[in-house]
């Protein structure tokens, strides 16, 4: 009965809708909307010749002031209010192919021409692209249906009604349990959680399940996998040798942040500017490794500045693409041809990132030392002592130096190098006897201590520091102790106020004629303030701790550290994107078209930039986040192009829904990611059945109205984690350095790099995929085959493909064959004595439901065949089951393993249903 009523209602609505459409297009005073009516035609038909880069005949339709300006003919092409006086109207309506626009292309349709006519008549008003307008609260559609569970459904239902499509009923318990578990924690829940849900009659059972999944520690692991693609996280630096990079602390920071439901605005602020927060914690520093995931080039002979700039550009592009769904990269070379961003504005934005201490150094300076608890206590004590005896500012400076060795000048960044060269992989400065170099414009106020990180080959070397010229007054002299490897050394200099160039001259007379043995290698030089209260016992005691802190190796992670004032780097526009043709100087700033979101009190640095990003008036950040969370759950974003919400991206299928939740996320949810996710998975839309009904094939083959749940091939990580789960092998261990599950030999073959893949032992073989070691130039093969990203640059969206190589992974990769063995043991152990019930049990372990008889028959048939085959060959059975120390294995055991291997390959297992 209800259904009938609904159908009638739909019909009625449809009649009204059709009527409305007719009215809409026949009434001449209908208000034309620039963004939805005009801009699409301009972009599609006009802008290639009459836009940003090209403006043929002096006519551009990129901005209103350009479109209304005089063209080469001396007259404007558009006269607001007067279509008949507008050259544009004449040119799009005329028959002569030499004059008609678009030139040499299909003429515009009658509808398109009439849209232009009305638009000009109505004043040729410009409008902003939807995604650049601040998010406003939305009215939830007033629709009713017993199908509706929450607001998500109201927006979805409204469109379905318009399209005369019925939504689908809710999926069965087994399906939804597996679906929501894979979505929220990327794997299967505990047996208890699953059973509780499957057997409960409580109407709130699903919500209880969702809450327990959201509270699971595995939640953070799953969502971190997603974020690592955006952050282009890897355990190696990239480029030629692709050496290891220790940055897993950042991955662990993400897992904790997701598990703690760190509000998204804080989550972003800490990653972009954690180092600039007042008294940043260790964790806030670690978060800034987000930006340090850009690649580092250690190849011999490369120009560090070139790759420093490449890294900065990568950070700008990542910030825009990952966090604001905008392809900002275009603006690197010229003004955006379609979106309101000007060429200069790219470099203003780049200026936010252009003043950090990293300079493509092989040791990845600056790295942040994560002191153990004992050292941390000593550090804090030392810092408070400095504060008491000197100033808070000095205390901060010393703390920063102990944790990051910053600010320091790297050997390869020194000036006026005489009788020396940049050695090896673009790292240390090497000086010969009589060599010298200079540190430019150093603020010497109170600085009386020089610290070198260096390596000298022979005894007898000396270094002198001179003020302002190589022959200037000597302000310090150092007999350089011979080293074993690279270490720290220090000497005192006379302090002097103001900015000075400091020259260092190096001598080793005894080896003057040996150009191999006379050398010193200098990694960095720092001019710092010594501890206060010199001469007192407290000074001596603290100085000892100071050196202990500096010299004790600790876990560390590359982080962002801002340049101090005297290290300030100017930023210039690169003409046509070329850094060798610098244009005008620019200051940090955001594009004018989005400047309204900049808080008044925001500082002009990365912290200010983060404040702008997370301001309620920023139109892009919340929308991008909501769109991405939706995509993770529904397979396709509300805007399909996650990377581009601009005018070149696809239009949202449900803009009001997107905006409603963008608003709610910022306001009602206080940026809570878990609350947003919960709302989505609680909806009927999410919980629907996924069958492709016949009518849907006709009306909505791409499921853009969401009348059913999507069926999606699992992500690379989920494919493996799921196999780990059902085989019972998954390790619960969290955090720490990347692990190396089995991979075929010969995958790592980088020149100038002796690192190798050493298969992890014990449970580390069976850790979740988020912990698998990521080498940029040689990714984990099975993950790459399943469309895992290479982590070279930010990957805002993985495109799912379907290839035979994927089948080969799950059929033959030793990892999957091994897991099939464990899975079959579990089936045999928990499935009773009968092979039928064992197979049925296996199916249930994977899919939470009883196996249909027909499928059971197929697997039984396979089992029988396999038993017969293995009966003919003991060696085959032994080989397949990897039985050690026996010459025989029961054919049944081998056969069940083969069945388990097949079961792990069926579509319903590889797919999230």
């Amino acid at each position, binding site marked *: 009965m209800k259904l009938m009523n609904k159908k009638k209602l739909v019909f009625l609505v449809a009649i009204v809708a059709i009527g409305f459409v007719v009215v809409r297009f026949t009434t001449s005073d209908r208000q034309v909307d620039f963004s939805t009516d005009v801009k699409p035609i301009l972009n*599609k038909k006009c802008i*290639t010749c009459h836009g940003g880069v090209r403006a043929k005949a002096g006519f551009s339709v990129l901005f209103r002031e350009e479109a209304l300006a005089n063209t080469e003919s001396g007259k404007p092409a558009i006269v607001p209010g007067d279509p008949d006086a507008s050259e544009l109207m004449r040119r799009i309506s005329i028959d002569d192919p030499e004059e008609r626009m678009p030139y040499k292309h299909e003429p515009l349709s009658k509808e398109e021409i009439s849209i232009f006519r009305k638009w000009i008549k109505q004043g040729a008003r410009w409008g902003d692209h939807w995604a650049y307008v601040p998010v406003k609260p939305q009215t939830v559609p007033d629709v009713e249906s017993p199908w509706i569970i929450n607001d998500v459904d109201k927006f979805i239902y409204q469109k379905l009604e318009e399209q005369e499509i019925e939504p689908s009923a809710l999926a069965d318990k087994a399906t939804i349990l597996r679906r929501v578990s894979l979505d929220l924690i990327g794997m299967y829940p505990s047996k208890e959680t699953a059973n509780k849900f499957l057997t409960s009659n409580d109407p709130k059972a699903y919500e209880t399940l969702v809450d327990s999944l959201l509270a699971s520690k595995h939640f953070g692991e799953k969502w971190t996998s997603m974020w690592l693609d955006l952050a282009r996280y890897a355990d190696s630096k*990239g480029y*030629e040798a*692709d050496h290891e990079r220790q940055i897993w602390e950042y991955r662990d920071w993400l897992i904790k942040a997701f598990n703690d439901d760190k509000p998204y605005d804080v989550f972003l602020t800490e990653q972009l500017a954690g180092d600039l927060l007042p008294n940043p914690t260790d964790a806030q520093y670690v978060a800034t490794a987000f930006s340090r995931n850009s690649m580092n*080039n250690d*190849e011999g*002979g*490369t*120009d560090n500045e070139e790759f420093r700039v490449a890294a900065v550009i990568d950070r700008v592009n990542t910030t825009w693409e990952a966090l604001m769904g905008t*392809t900002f*990269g*275009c603006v690197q070379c010229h003004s*955006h041809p379609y979106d309101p961003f000007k060429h200069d504005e790219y470099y203003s934005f780049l200026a936010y990132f252009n003043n950090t201490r990293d300079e493509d150094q092989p040791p990845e300076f600056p790295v942040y030392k994560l002191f153990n608890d004992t050292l941390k206590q000593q550090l804090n004590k030392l810092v408070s002592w400095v504060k008491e005896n000197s100033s808070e500012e000095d205390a901060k400076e010393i703390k920063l130096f102990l944790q990051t060795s910053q600010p320091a000048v790297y050997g390869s960044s020194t000036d006026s190098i005489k009788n020396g*060269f940049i050695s090896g992989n673009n790292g240390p400065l090497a000086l010969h006897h009589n060599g010298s170099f200079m540190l430019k414009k150093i603020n010497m106020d109170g600085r009386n201590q020089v610290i070198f990180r260096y390596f000298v080959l022979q005894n007898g070397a000396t270094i002198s520091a001179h003020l302002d010229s190589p022959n200037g007054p000597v302000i310090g002299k150092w007999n350089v102790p011979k080293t074993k490897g690279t270490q720290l050394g220090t000497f005192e200099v006379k302090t002097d106020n103001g900015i000075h160039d400091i020259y260092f001259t190096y001598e080793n007379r005894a080896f003057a004629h040996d*150009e191999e043995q006379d050398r010193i290698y200098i990694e960095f030089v720092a001019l710092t303030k010594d501890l206060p209260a010199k001469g007192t016992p407290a000074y001596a005691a603290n100085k000892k701790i100071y050196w202990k802190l500096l010299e004790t190796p600790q876990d560390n992670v590359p982080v962002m550290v801002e340049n101090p004032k005297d290290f300030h780097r100017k930023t210039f526009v690169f003409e046509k994107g070329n850094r060798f043709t610098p244009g005008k100087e620019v200051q940090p700033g955001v594009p004018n078209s989005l400047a309204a979101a900049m808080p008044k009190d925001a500082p002009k640095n990365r912290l200010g930039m983060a404040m702008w990003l997370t301001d309620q008036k920023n139109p892009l950040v919340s929308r991008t986040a909501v769109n991405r969370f939706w995509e993770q759950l529904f397979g396709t974003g509300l805007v399909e192009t996650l990377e*581009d919400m601009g*005018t*070149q991206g*696809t*239009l949202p299928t449900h803009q009001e829904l997107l905006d409603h939740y963008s608003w709610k996320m910022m306001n009602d949810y206080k940026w809570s990611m878990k609350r947003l996710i919960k709302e989505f998975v609680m909806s009927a839309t999410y919980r629907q059945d996924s069958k*492709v009904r016949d009518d849907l*094939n006709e009306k909505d*083959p*791409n499921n*853009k109205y969401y009348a059913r749940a999507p069926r999606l091939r699992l992500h690379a990580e989920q494919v493996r984690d799921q196999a780990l789960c059902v085989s019972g092998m998954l390790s619960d261990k969290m955090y720490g350095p990347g692990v190396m599950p089995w991979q075929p*030999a010969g995958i790592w*073959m980088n*020149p100038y790099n002796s690192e190798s893949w050493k298969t992890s032992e014990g449970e580390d073989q069976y850790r979740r995929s988020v912990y698998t070691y990521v080498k*940029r*130039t*040689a990714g984990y093969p099975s993950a790459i085959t399943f469309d895992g990203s290479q982590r*070279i*640059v930010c990957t805002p969206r993985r495109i*799912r*493909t*379907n*290839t*035979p*190589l*994927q*089948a*080969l992974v799950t*059929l*033959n990769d030793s990892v999957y064959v091994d897991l099939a063995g464990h899975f079959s043991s579990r089936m045999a152990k928990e499935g009773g004595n009968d092979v039928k019930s064992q197979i049925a049990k296996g199916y249930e372990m994977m899919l939470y439901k009883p196996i249909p008889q027909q*499928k059971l028959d*197929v697997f039984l048939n*396979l089992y029988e*065949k*396999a038993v017969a*085959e*293995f009966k003919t060959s003991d060696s*085959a*059975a*032994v*080989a*397949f089951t990897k039985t050690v120390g026996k010459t025989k294995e029961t054919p049944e055991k081998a056969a069940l393993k083969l069945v388990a291997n097949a079961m792990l390959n*069926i*579509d*319903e297992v590889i797919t999230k249903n």
Partner: protein
Amino acid sequence: MTQKELNIQKLLNEARERSLHAHTRRHFLKESAMGLGALAMGALLGSCGSRGAASPTVMFDPARPLLPKPPHFPGKAKSVIFLHMAGAPSQLELFDYKPALMKMDGQDCPQSFLEGRQFAFIRGIPKMLGPQANFAQRGQSGAWVSDRLPHFSTVADEVSFLKAMTTDQFNHAPAQLLVHTGGPRLGRPSIGSWVTYGLGTENQNLPGFVVLTSGGNNPDAGKSVWGSGFLPSVYQGVQCRSDGDPVLFIKDPDGVNRDLRKASIDAINNVNKQEFEEYQDPEILSRISQYEMAYRMQITAPDVMNINNEPEYIHEMYGTKPGKTCFANNVLLARKLVEKGVRFVQLFDWGWDSHGAGANEALNLGFINKCRSVDKAMTALLLDLKQRGLLEETLVVWAGEFGRTPMQERRDGAVNPFKGRDHHTEAFTVWLAGGGIKKGYTHGETDEIGYTTVSGKTDNHDLQATILHQLGFDHERFTYPFQGRPFRLTDVAGKVIHDIIA
């Protein structure tokens, strides 16, 4: 086929068509109201009226990403074998004969060659280094080839030399990326990926783009030189190995024979068909056909990748070493692969970085061995393709990522212990053969010491444009939308080198 099977086949095809239609519209027309697709197609069709005739469009169909597709116009070449000597061999010891440089041997390099230039390793004032090989003119064409390549000297009349090749990257990784992806940074698709995206693959039982490496290391830029960049990952090169599984995971697990594998794939597909009947999702059908294809690939690939069954005279001709990983084996495999319809075979042979910092890197030691290890095989490749009538439709390219300096390297300000040269961007030699390229022709010229070009200057983008042209693509119209704009292999540059086209 039984009636039932036929029905399922019909069902499969229909559903595929439906899904193709849907996907096509989804990705290229309807959904992208303003554009990505429209832009891509516009670019392909020639926007702004600069190109007249409509041409077939390249589209990405996730359900059948490797379907054979026609190029813009009929190309002379059907497939490409790209021999990359990773490390950059010295043109001055192989093809670019400079007697004048001999006279300057041992003299200080004139300041004018050093000013405003940046070298990878040379510091201070280096000495000039004369050719470390003897040269002679070869064949009818009279092309100069040194005695380091006695075999290749006999086929000089088959090839076109580009003697004035240039690049703007003087480090291996960025320079190799520029050769293969059109840009010096990681993240862009390699030429083989572009070609596979554009043409699909002829032989569905083999990967469309195969990579073979030798010399003990992967190329300096790693797997990105055959990566798919922003193209769907299905277009990345598949690294085949002559040691271990020829294609990763292609071998059935120990103890599982072909019958059992067939039985298990049949079982999987049977269950998947039941699944399809219930859910009607065309993606399931796609998975069924991928499993069928995987099964066939398991038979075809190891067969093609096995060189043991080749006749003795072929082994002799190539100088293969069965059972080992070497360049000669890879060259023979390349021939077998193109014969079976593989579109793009990319070979990398590592170890050509003749700095002179060690014996292996010495022009008068290690370099000679490297030449020996490739000479016979690359010569055999041309002759073998020719005798099979395949040379006309197979484009063979031989290149390094840059050239080498006419000066002897002086690393970190000290003279290197062995004869060697530093990286050089301003001049090097590349040769091409077959696939509609002129025979016995030399294009471009360098100055009298081989330092810089004087005429016929070409660069990587020109080379890429030419390769694409021979395959039937206009490189300016062959684009893919990414980061808000249509990207192409040749970035914003590249001119087809018409002078070397027959």
